């Protein structure tokens, strides 16, 4: 009786341990894969980049914006903070957007007004503020592995990818859930799908046109496809990468009226 009780206990313990052990291992791996793909997208030092956004509706160009982005990770090695300056169109020239976690400020040099924005407030059509600024997903999402799949990447090449399920784990996360495909070789981000709380597809993003930037092959273009209107497409193209210092004092509201690029 005692032996059978022991066997039952052992079996029960194993039943709990066996399924959970691979899950724990997967969680660690998935998070590491996500962090590695973040490192492919984002340099690990302060930098500047020009982001050209071209928005298409029903197959025709609708809007075009050119932004100068200055990004720097938080001192604790955390999320990026970004200062964004509009270069074009002419009506928006020199407007500024400061993105510091959930702290968002918009400055218009015409009215000299610094206006605080909510994270939901979008300034650039389909692209959310979170799409425009540099973001480390591994910091704001918990990743779990959902197997491997072969998919066609944004450059129409077949890619063997890890499929990761990302769930928001901090209030700074822009989306409740993301599905992400990351190349099994080199951890390149290939494709992502962003969902609402209720599971509705918000948008699909393809990371493509990989080119050497700061010694690493990085995506130089993101194509965003709307989840509801598939013919609503935004192309974000990154050029003019430069390693540059972004002083800590720039990353606050009171500096916005004074900000001048060098």
């Amino acid at each position, binding site marked *: 009786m005692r032996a059978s009780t022991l066997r039952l206990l052992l079996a029960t313990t194993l039943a709990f341990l066996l399924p959970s052990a691979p899950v724990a291992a997967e969680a660690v791996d998935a998070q590491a894969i996500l962090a590695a793909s973040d490192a492919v997208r984002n340099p690990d030092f302060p930098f500047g980049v020009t982001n050209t956004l071209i928005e*298409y509706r029903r197959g025709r160009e609708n*809007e075009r914006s050119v932004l100068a982005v200055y990004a720097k990770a938080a001192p604790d090695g955390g999320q990026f903070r970004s200062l964004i300056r509009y270069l074009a169109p*002419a009506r928006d020239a020199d407007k500024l957007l400061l993105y510091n976690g959930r702290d968002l400020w918009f400055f218009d040099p015409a*009215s000299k007004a610094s206006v605080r924005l909510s994270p939901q407030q979008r300034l650039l059509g389909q692209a959310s503020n979170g799409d425009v600024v540099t973001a480390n997903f591994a910091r704001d999402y918990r990743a779990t592995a959902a197997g491997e799949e072969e998919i066609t990447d944004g450059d129409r090449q077949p890619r063997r990818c890890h499929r990761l399920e990302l769930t928001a784990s901090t209030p700074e996360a822009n989306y409740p859930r993301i599905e992400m495909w990351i190349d099994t070789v080199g951890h390149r981000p290939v494709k992502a799908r962003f969902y609402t709380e209720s599971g509705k597809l918000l948008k699909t993003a*393809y990371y493509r046109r990989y080119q050497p930037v700061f010694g690493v092959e990085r995506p130089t273009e993101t194509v965003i496809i709307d989840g509801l209107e*598939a013919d609503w497409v935004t192309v974000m193209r990154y050029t003019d990468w430069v390693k540059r210092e972004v002083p800590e*004092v720039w990353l*606050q509201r*009171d500096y916005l009226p004074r900000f*001048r690029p060098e």
Partner: protein
Amino acid sequence: MKRAAAAFGTIRVAVAAALLAAGAARADDADEAALRLADAAPEVTHAAAGGRLFVEGAAGRGGGDGFRRLSLDLRYEHALAPGLRAFVANRLDVRSPTPDGADAAINTLKEAYLGWQMSADALLDLGRINLKNGVAAGYNPTDWFRAGAVRSVVSIDPASLRENRQGSVMLRGQRLWPGGSLTALYAPRLARSPDDDGLSLDFGATNGRERGLVAVGETFGGLALQFLVYREAERSTQYGLNLTALANDATVAHIEWSGGRERPSPLMAAAAGSGSADAWRNRLAAGFTWTSPQRLSLTAEYHYNGAGLDTTAWNALRRTPPQRLAHLRAEALATQEAPTRHTLFLHANWQDAFVPRLNLALMHHRDLTDDSRRIWLEARYHAGDIEYAIQWQRGDGSPTSRFGAFGGSPGWQAVLRHYFQ
């Protein structure tokens, strides 16, 4: 029977699988079409910004009369040396017919100053600077430099009033630290009184008195705070506070307050029947902005002007000869203060409304003292470097009320703007 049920189950599974596959195929087709668009996206070359120029033409009707306007608006900055830059912003409005006694051409030198960035965290500016304080949208109690600053009103939109005004000549220093700053400025007296000449630099309107301001900004968690102390010759010290907080992912709350001892203007003192005694006055604008996922932003604010007339004094003034009321209204317009105490303000802005690139805006003022109302609507569409706008406004209330002065006659204007860079 069991076999039929099993077959039916198999068919259901097959249909579901086919639907899923069809859905995936459709998604793949859509993705492929999107990627083809991206393949053909043009290589964009751009010049670094550093200025803006637009020409604007407008025609409309207000107060029963037609009018036309042509405006030229320029903002430009230029690096003179490392850390040293020159800034100029100017606007010229030419009107027809000319308002009573005014020049047809009104020039507003908004800014002309030198900015010296001494180090990453220390800055010094000298010249005419358009300084704007305040976090509220419809009324800014801490924006002390707004009084007399608007030479030419082209719209009652608060954003337009903030944009189309002349700065004050001042020496301004700023020290920054991570998350905060200290600003101190001094604006000297340069002229005795405003100058109506259309091309005047009008230092009397902005630098008619010696003034100074110290402001400290700091961030505490999600709270952004700013404390201000303002001093003007022959006036008591005024204090101010600006506060914003993120209520949730879609809502920003804000409070703007100012207070200090103050002597009413002769017109206000006569209307209030209170004499010219110095008394503590509070001013407040408090509200929130909520944004929907569809890019609709709604702002609601309550405005309190402690220096305005209470219900009794306002109603008494409305029974006096109309000239007194007209003078008080003109003074309120120049100082951008309400003549009464309590106002509700609503502002809605919808970007990409119904069709891409169409912005719709609505502004509503309701005076809680005399229950008069004003509504302002704007539809603005942009295509490339050109913007088209139609604005319409209407006041409701008795002819002697705050917003019913024009007997409910609506005004409108059509605007065409062309940007150059």
